[in-house]
């Protein structure tokens, strides 16, 4: 089914919400209100939204520490997410998970993960559950280019291929794994080629084009639902900020960042909606205003939320 104008506006709204959410969280981090480390997905909103809009809420998903946007796009309550970042008991994990462990099984979110590569193994099990139960749910795992050098990642690809699991391995190739260019750490030009060697379908897509991401993911999802097995998607993308807040970024040039920034999906997508899809400037303006107001509400909720009580440290150990 082609996307309606309403769908397109919802996609834009979510992309913008993610951007504003991450910007607000960056402020909190700089103020010392978010502890630990924080890995913004600024610049990678189109993959989060294009990928997640191809999923249903009952589909399963795992992602990484850079997964705030993907979690929101999958349906995580943004207030709970922000409260979690601030360590409050109203957070999605009651303050026990933090930035790198957003989890909500009610929307199929089986966790961000702070261990590079681990989520690819876990999604296979979720997809196997769906297959054993005879449902047409699929599993999608987001990970970075760097994760494709992990042993467990290759094990996961192989298991999904031999069991023909309904899984989408969604690689966000943002050219760097932390501070290391992926081209220095992989001998082949294409990461998708490596996945193809396991005997699965592959696709490469422009990760700055939410509609291309959506179409590519949807094709993989439909194949998986129909029993056609796993797909590896390599989405070429770029983070417009450092690996984590505080990254001095000596490993890339200002020119390279500027080149990608000129294609910033948060700027380009609404222009395209106006130019190609009959959306009015007013409609875009209304979304911008609505998101700005929503962010204030999210922030207020998170900041006013109570802290966990000391006794809660011992809770949630056992089912």
């Amino acid at each position, binding site marked *: 089914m082609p996307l309606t104008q309403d769908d397109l506006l919802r996609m834009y709204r979510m992309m913008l919400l993610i951007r504003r959410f991450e910007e607000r969280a960056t402020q909190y981090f700089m103020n010392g209100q978010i502890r630990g480390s924080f890995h913004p997905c600024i610049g990678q909103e189109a993959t989060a939204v294009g990928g997640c809009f191809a999923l249903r809420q009952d589909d*399963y998903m*795992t992602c990484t520490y850079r997964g705030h946007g993907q979690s929101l796009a999958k349906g995580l309550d943004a207030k709970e997410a922000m409260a979690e970042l601030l360590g409050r008991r109203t*957070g*999605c*994990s*009651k*303050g*026990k*998970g933090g930035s790198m*462990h957003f*989890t*909500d*099984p*009610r929307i199929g979110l*089986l*966790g961000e*993960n702070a*261990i590079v590569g*681990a989520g*690819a*193994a*876990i*999604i*296979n*099990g*979720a*997809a*196997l*559950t*769906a297959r*054993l*139960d005879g449902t047409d749910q699929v*599993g999608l795992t987001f990970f970075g280019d760097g994760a494709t050098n992990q*042993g*467990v990642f290759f*094990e*996961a690809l*192989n*298991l999904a291929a*031999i069991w023909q699991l309904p899984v989408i391995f969604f690689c966000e190739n943002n050219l760097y794994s932390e501070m290391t260019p992926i081209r220095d750490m992989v001998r082949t030009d294409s990461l998708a080629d490596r996945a193809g060697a396991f005997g699965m379908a592959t696709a490469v897509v422009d990760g700055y084009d939410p509609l291309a991401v959506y179409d590519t993911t949807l094709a993989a999802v439909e194949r998986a639902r129909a029993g056609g097995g796993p797909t590896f998607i390599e989405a070429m993308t770029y983070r417009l900020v450092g690996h984590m807040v505080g990254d001095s970024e000596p490993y890339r040039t200002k020119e390279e960042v500027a080149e990608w920034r000129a294609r910033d999906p948060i700027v380009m997508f609404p222009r395209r909606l106006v130019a190609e899809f009959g959306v009015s400037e007013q409609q875009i303006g209304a979304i911008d205003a609505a998101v700005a107001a929503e962010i204030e509400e999210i922030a207020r909720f998170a900041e006013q939320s109570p802290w966990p009580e000391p006794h809660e440290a011992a*809770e*949630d*150990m*056992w*089912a």
Partner: protein
Amino acid sequence: MREITYAQAVREALTEGMTHDPNIILIGEDIGLYGGVFKVTEGLLAKFGPERVRETPISEAGFVGAAVGMAMTGKRPVVELMFMDFLWVASDQVFNQAAKMRYMSGGRVKVPMVIRSQQGGGRGNGAQHSQSFETIFTHIPGMKVVLPATPYDAKGLLKTALREDNPVIFIEHKLLYNTRGHVPEEDYAIPFGVADIKREGSDVTLVSLSRTVLFALEAAEEASRDGVSVEVIDLRTTVPLDLEAILKSVRKTGRLVIAHEAHRRLGIGAEIAALVQEQAFDYLDAPIARVGAMDVPIPASKTLEDVVLPGKSHILDAIRAIVS
């Protein structure tokens, strides 16, 4: 009274569990047609089919990770690791994923999975196939840790493990598989966290677990000929730990020996010694003694392995040292 082997007892628990609960799925290497290298799952493929008795590639991180995902989405995977030593290959999925998922999600997910494997030495398998790891699992919060010593306990504890909503590390011992013991025909389950007094006594409390319980019982028998009455407590689970059973016995005997096959250094004996001196210091009439494997990798040659792994004589020496 019906007697079966430890391996049969494990198989019976799996068979009964799978018959009642269609969500129980076995996964592991060579567990299907061959029935696992120790033949524990023999016949289960024929009975339950390849969807529920799933053969995997040699890919421990990959399939333990898949089990975590299955458990989080409503299945009850039972993983067989061929040797506990291979745990390390999958250790991220065990320690960072399975054990932490529930807590990290603020209680929103549960991870009802069992990892079964066999551990221990005594067969000359060498350093990478003979280790004992219960201490490691006990140290990291988030897993129940079970080590049956008898066929009766193996079946009853595994039945409980198959109904447990948290990750369970179910540790068998390779040299227990062929031991025989009474296992009733009728259904039963043994709760976690309840130690079993395998022999009553009044002079010394001897706490043990897994195969070392058999040596403890032999040592207790021999000590009784010297007029020393030894109470043998089989922990059966280290998480949860039945500390009350230990304290109760120590208050009676005033003497404590802890014996296990894992390395002595920081073994479960160290933890129990610490807990007992905290909570029953006034009852102790002698220093607490610990028996465990020498702190070297487990050697292959019989003469060396016999020195490194604790047996009856090591336990007897410890008993004599604290009663004299």
